[in-house]
């Protein structure tokens, strides 16, 4: 009797754990099945080469390139802010700051990640953009630059927190060895600690990239929602996520091509994120072999 109860409880708990796998299957399954009808209308070739994305217009074009362009542009700007600042902050916290000060600074930095993204959107649109317009008077109210910069600040804690954990888990005898042969703190940090923690730092970067690719509200609010094939960060543009928001705000009839197009956009986003994760995994493997 008791054994039966134990087995029952174990299987219930197992189902709970397995539910996370069902979530993934659900996401992939829904995105794929809802995207298939789209590709019966639009050829894959047209999808990846057409320079326009106007699925809701009379004269519809279905080219993902403008959305990809906007997504990459905002992501690159965000990473240019977040990776250097996040890594330097992590090295500083792990190698220079006393532990009790770190215990205060790290949670404060993590507050940045707790701020709701719609609040960051407000900040980008009504604080950063007017500020940037003083530098670039030609810039419009919606632009990629301010969205990217604000997103970068938002991502700093994701990168710094995980990198700092990785750096701190480097055994201290490595540091002591480095100090013993006369290396300074900065030499130890860059030549011993960071290389040793590199696989952890890589996963921090990958998480940061995933965040930036999938970030929605900041770009939907501050970058405008006009698919625009441009590399000029002063112009408005739309990311994949912003397009999904734009369509969802309207009345989309279930089964229409507009409805399907958001699933295609979502699937492209998921594939993109997946590619970066696999790349990160490969990079980590490569560096672990070296040790």
């Amino acid at each position, binding site marked *: 009797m008791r054994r039966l109860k134990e087995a029952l409880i174990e299987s219930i*708990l197992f189902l709970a754990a397995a539910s996370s796998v069902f979530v993934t299957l659900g996401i992939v399954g829904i995105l794929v099945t809802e995207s298939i009808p789209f590709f019966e209308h639009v050829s894959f070739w047209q999808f990846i080469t057409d320079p326009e994305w106007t699925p809701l217009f009379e004269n519809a074009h279905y080219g993902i390139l403008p959305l990809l362009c906007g997504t990459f542009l905002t992501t690159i700007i965000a990473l240019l802010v977040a990776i250097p600042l996040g890594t330097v902050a992590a090295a500083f916290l792990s190698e220079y700051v006393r532990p009790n000060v770190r215990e205060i600074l790290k949670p404060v930095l993590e507050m940045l990640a707790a701020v709701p993204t719609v609040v960051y959107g407000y900040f980008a649109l009504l604080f950063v953009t007017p500020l940037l317009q003083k530098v670039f008077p030609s810039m419009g109210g919606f632009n990629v630059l301010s969205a990217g910069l604000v997103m970068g600040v938002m991502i700093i804690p994701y990168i710094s927190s995980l990198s700092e954990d990785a750096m701190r888990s480097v055994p201290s005898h490595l540091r002591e060895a480095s100090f013993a042969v006369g290396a300074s703190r900065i030499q130890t940090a860059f030549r011993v600690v960071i290389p040793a923690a590199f696989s952890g730092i890589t996963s921090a970067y990958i998480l940061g990239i995933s965040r930036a690719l999938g970030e929605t509200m900041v770009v939907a609010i501050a970058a405008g929602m006009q698919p625009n094939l441009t590399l000029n960060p002063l112009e408005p543009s739309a990311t994949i996520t912003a397009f999904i928001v734009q369509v969802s705000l309207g009345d989309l009839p279930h089964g229409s091509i507009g409805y399907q197009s958001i*699933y295609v956009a979502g699937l492209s986003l998921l594939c993109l994120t997946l590619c970066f994760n696999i790349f990160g995994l490969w990079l980590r493997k490569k560096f672990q072999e070296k040790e």
Partner: protein
Amino acid sequence: MESRQDLLSNIKRRQMWDFCFALAGLMALMFALVTLLALIVDLAITGVPRINFDFFTNFPSRFPQKAGILSAWVGSFCIMLTTAFCAIPLGVAAGVYLEEYAKKNWVSSLIELNIVNLAGIPSITYGLMALGLFVYKLKLGQSILTAGLTLGLLVLPIIIVTTREAIRSIPNIIREASYAMGASKWQTIRYHILPYSSGGILTGVIISLSRAIGETAPLITIGALTFIAFLPTSPIDTHLPYLNFKWLMDPFTVMPIQMFNWLSRPQAEFHVNAAATGIVLLVMTLVMNGGAIWLRSRFRKKMKW
């Protein structure tokens, strides 16, 4: 051989580099913190004068001065309740399984890998999944229930990970002592492991709810209304059984969506309302996070095995 002079200048140069890097680190931290401060101050200057009692008890309106966030905060509250009911039991159970039961085989490593990957999946794809699965396949409609389930699944990995950390920090002697008294595995978990790790689990729950309360994109995708001037059905009935769950199927709006709606209008008066909503949201998330951090450090200090 290096002369003493060279050595000294060498040391000096390295010390200078060291100092420069410390300065750069400090600047990087300060840059992030000053931005956070600028964000808070900017919001507060614009938004705080707008916050009064009427702001919380009025429905949204065409007139910015009259508009309030009643339907938004009630919606946020109802959805948080649903999210908590969905995510806490599932997350804690999954955490317990992975930490106490899972054997080292491909099934458990698949689950673990999957949880790590879920953290990187964009939140808006959860919204798309919910639109396809909950709204159209399971016909739950664009309701509070759909929204709660969506956010519940979204924050599930946070609860699983923090539950596991909390359980892992309990030393084995506790388990062994319990087994020695003849307790079964489940009894050990139920009466020892779970109570002792409740502090850590609570931290995870608070953090996940503070994440869910600010989440906007997946709710826009499943069709949250942006203008809603009524409240969900009251959960209290006049006749037996005095409780109903009709409110679960009602349409909703939440505070971040209300803020987004006001933000996307051209009139500056609505932007003031957006700032005020932003302040309410920010205070809630920061208080919740601060509470979680405080709780974590308190439990860390108190626990001495």
